[in-house]
């Protein structure tokens, strides 16, 4: 071999070896780090999950939940199997609340306004600075004797947080604690108070009923306590005894309506009249089990089925049929939901439903309406504390400072309320919101509060299960960001305030406050004490179980008098804004099953999980009957403009045969400005609503306008998950008729 050759081979060999070495180095996976705990936290075993019992705060039903926590991180939320409300189940919104905890759009620490109000220009500050600023503003106000000009605006608060807020406000010297959210059941509370003298919402015992007559109650997805009612619904259908029947009265099929055996599409705004027509039919035919027939006949004389049929667009025979079945099936139950109470005269419709239950003898019986014990920490809701009251006070500069927590009225009130403009008059606004939203954007100071999974709290489930249910909320994880509990903020604010704030704000922390509160309840309530050694023992068990509840039913008697009924009912259909010729279609707005009033819009799961009735994701739509659409020249997915006397929005058309041809429906909750998942998703339906309040309760009437619908220039695209909704005889969802089913059941 030649020398040159040898050298060349040597060179190649050397280069090859080096390259191989580098190749090995590059392809090797980098050594992961192994970081031990400095001091091991108690209870935590890496790789093993802990479960913490708590309470869901996504809506007001107060379901008990358990949170799966691994290495300090919340992984999954499930229904607490022992809890009498949720019974182990949990709805979509509850399960998605973990995404509220870990939402990338959360406000990560206290912020102070730097630029113009509403410009969104905020500077990060420390908690001490922010708390000092807040304390200074409030104490200045109080010193100048204008304590009453401080308003606290919160969502519906529960349990001890509610009590603390009340204590704080009274200690501070302001009567103005306004609790506002869109679905607050004010009408229901009012109707029950007015007709039955109840301070709480009773328990509708769907589980044991055999005939459920629902007036616009979407209890399977949004109304009151969907998980509890769904559990009941399942038992009603396939529990012991005969299969319960569900009749749904609503102009547009909701998720619950989709499951009904019969759908009664009454004309919007006339459901209350239909209920009273049924009541009259019952009395007339002598079906009624309670109440003096002649007195009721007199009280209901304006609701003869013949006239009712003309008003409601439901045939007379059908009214009699329903009346007969409702009265003769034992037990039966009538409920009135958002679909009924969202009219301008919503409360009277709910009274009508109570009348039905009274006449059929459903009050206080298993499978009917069961009374709930009173909330030990809350008196009746003050119907005069309304958002419009705040708006008018602010407009006339009677508000000097405003604190906002967990509610977004700018988004959920019609433009006519001029809330945004009025709030701008307030010199100092502080927000405790954990997320930037339309209302928080007006704040001068933001002190982000913990989300429910990081916080202490408690609640007295409403409607409970006909027996007391006290649920405790405990932090499952330590705060993800630099946030604090609202209770802690209020307590430390009270301490830093000069002057006496009263004796009830002495607790060191909100956790202690809650514990003390429970200690007081424990000392008062003998049922709580039974079976426990002392309070510490009770407290440990309570934290483990997620609360305390008993099986003991409330013994209160229920009835509706003719007087109370006549005072509240009317034979006029609910008023709809707009001329019938110019605006030919009724507009129904409803709580979206996932996003409710919009609070779930920034949780990606709730955007991506298809809406049960339309399968539309990441957007909003308007439901139109195909016949109406055809006459208007609208095709599925078209952008249409929806115009009312109060405004105009556009949405995509979804053609759905389950809606009256004279009605269109819009889901609430989309059209927000903030949040990476929530923004740019259609428009806010509240934009076309007039400001119509129930004069007695202050509840906003969501179904209060007529609209006209026309094809608009296309914007975006409606995305739905369904391909075709036609079965084409493929036997995908097989069915048996109820008759066959009862035959089957007998044979078995």
């Amino acid at each position, binding site marked *: 071999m030649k020398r040159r050759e040898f050298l060349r081979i040597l060179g*190649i060999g050397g280069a090859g*070896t080096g390259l191989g070495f580098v190749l*090995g180095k590059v392809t090797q996976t980098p*050594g992961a780090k192994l970081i*031990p705990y400095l001091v091991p936290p108690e209870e935590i075993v*890496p790789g093993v999950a802990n479960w913490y019992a708590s309470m869901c705060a996504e809506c007001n039903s107060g379901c008990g939940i358990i949170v799966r926590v691994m290495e300090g991180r919340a992984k999954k939320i499930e229904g607490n199997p022992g809890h009498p409300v949720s019974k182990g189940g949990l709805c979509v919104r509850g399960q998605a609340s973990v995404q509220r905890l870990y939402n990338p759009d959360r406000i990560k620490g206290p912020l102070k306004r730097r630029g113009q109000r509403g410009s969104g220009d905020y500077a990060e500050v420390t908690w001490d600075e922010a708390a000092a600023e807040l304390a200074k503003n409030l104490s200045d106000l109080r010193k100048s004797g204008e304590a009453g000009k401080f308003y606290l605006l919160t969502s519906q608060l529960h349990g001890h947080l509610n009590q603390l807020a009340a204590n704080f406000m009274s200690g501070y010297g302001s009567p103005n604690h306004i609790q506002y959210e869109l679905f607050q059941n004010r009408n229901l509370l009012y109707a029950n108070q007015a007709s039955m003298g109840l301070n709480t919402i009773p328990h509708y015992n769907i589980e044991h009923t055999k005939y459920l007559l629902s007036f616009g109650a979407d209890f399977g997805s949004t109304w009151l306590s969907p998980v509890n009612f769904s559990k009941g619904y399942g038992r009603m259908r396939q529990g012991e005894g005969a299969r319960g029947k569900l009749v749904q009265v609503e102009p547009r099929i909701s998720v619950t309506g989709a499951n009904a055996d019969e759908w009664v599409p009454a004309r919007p705004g006339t459901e209350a009249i239909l209920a009273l027509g049924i009541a009259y039919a019952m009395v007339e035919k002598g079906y009624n089990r309670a109440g003096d027939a002649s007195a009721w006949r007199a009280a209901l004389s304006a609701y003869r089925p013949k006239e009712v049929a003309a008003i409601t667009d439901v045939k007379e025979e059908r009214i009699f049929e329903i009346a007969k079945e409702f009265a003769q099936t034992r037990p039966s139950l009538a409920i009135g939901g958002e679909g009924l109470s969202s009219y301008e005269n919503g409360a009277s419709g709910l009274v009508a439903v109570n009348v039905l239950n009274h006449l059929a003898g459903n009050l206080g019986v298993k499978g009917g309406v069961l009374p709930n014990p009173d909330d030990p920490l809350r008196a009746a809701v003050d119907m005069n504390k309304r958002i419009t009251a705040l708006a008018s006070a602010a407009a006339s500069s009677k508000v000097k400072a405003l604190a906002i927590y967990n509610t977004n009225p700018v988004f959920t009130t019609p433009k006519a309320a001029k809330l945004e403009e009025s709030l701008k008059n307030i010199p100092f606004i502080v927000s405790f919101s954990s997320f930037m939203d339309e209302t928080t954007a007006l704040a001068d100071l933001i002190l982000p509060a913990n989300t429910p999974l990081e916080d202490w709290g408690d609640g007295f489930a409403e409607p409970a299960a006909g027996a007391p249910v006290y649920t405790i909320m405990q932090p499952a994880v330590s705060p993800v960001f630099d946030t604090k509990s609202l209770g802690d903020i209020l307590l430390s604010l009270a301490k830093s305030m000069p002057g006496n704030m009263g004796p009830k704000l002495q607790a060191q922390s909100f956790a202690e406050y809650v514990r003390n509160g429970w200690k007081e309840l424990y000392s008062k309530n003998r049922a709580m004490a039974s079976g426990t050694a002392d309070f510490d023992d009770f407290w440990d068990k309570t934290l483990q179980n997620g609360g305390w509840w008993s099986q003991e039913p409330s013994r209160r008697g229920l009835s509706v008098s003719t007087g109370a009924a006549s005072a509240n009912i009317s034979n006029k259909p609910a008023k709809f804004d707009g001329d019938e010729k110019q605006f030919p279609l009724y507009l129904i707005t409803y709580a979206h099953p996932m996003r409710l009033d919009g609070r779930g819009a920034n949780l990606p799961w709730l955007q991506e999980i298809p809406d049960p009735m339309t399968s539309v994701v990441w957007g909003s739509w308007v439901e139109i009957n195909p016949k109406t659409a055809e006459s208007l020249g609208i095709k599925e997915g078209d952008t249409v403009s929806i115009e009312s006397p109060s405004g105009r929005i556009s949405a995509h058309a979804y053609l759905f045969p389950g809606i009256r041809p004279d009605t269109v429906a819009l889901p609430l909750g989309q059209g927000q400005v903030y949040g990476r998942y929530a923004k740019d998703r259609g428009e806010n339906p509240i934009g076309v609503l007039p400001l119509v309040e129930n004069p007695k309760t202050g509840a906003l009437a969501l179904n209060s306008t007529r609209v006209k619908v026309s094809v608009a220039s296309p914007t975006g695209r409606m995305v739905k998950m369904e391909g075709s909704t036609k079965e084409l005889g493929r036997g995908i969802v097989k069915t048996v008729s109820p008759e066959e089913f009862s035959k089957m059941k007998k044979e078995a």
Partner: protein
Amino acid sequence: MKKLIVYALTGVISLAIGYWVQQQFFSDRAPVQPINFSHKIHAGVNKIPCQYCHIYAERSRVSGVPNVQRCMGCHKIIKTDSPEIQKVTAYWEKKEPIPWTKVHNLPDYVYFPHKRHVRAGVECTNCHGDVPNMDRITKVSSLQMGWCLTCHTQRNVKNGRDCWTCHK
């Protein structure tokens, strides 16, 4: 022609040698740790049982790295003058955890519960090698799928060859 073949062969063979040398002697089979911790002294000379420090091995999927508090439990008193121990003390005082480098690293899709193996009576040394005689921890087993399967087959593990026994 011949020449080209010779060159190509030389290149390929030397590439393989280079790769092998890297894998065998310079890889992370025995990475340098932030503290020169010797298992030989602890487990070998002083005969401390494995699970004295790796406390979760019998209870959880992971065996657990001893927390710094546990180190300090002994080393507040023992050999406080050693420079390595002083490093531990420094971490403890700074309230910082020690950033150990992982030697036995499994991909995310592998489900390996220590618990099941410890309870089945598999010795730690079976997979981790003769740790009591290692100054610095060296990976002795390949931890490749075939290696796992061979053992599962030998021990006649129930469903030991089902994919979802070890994958997740």
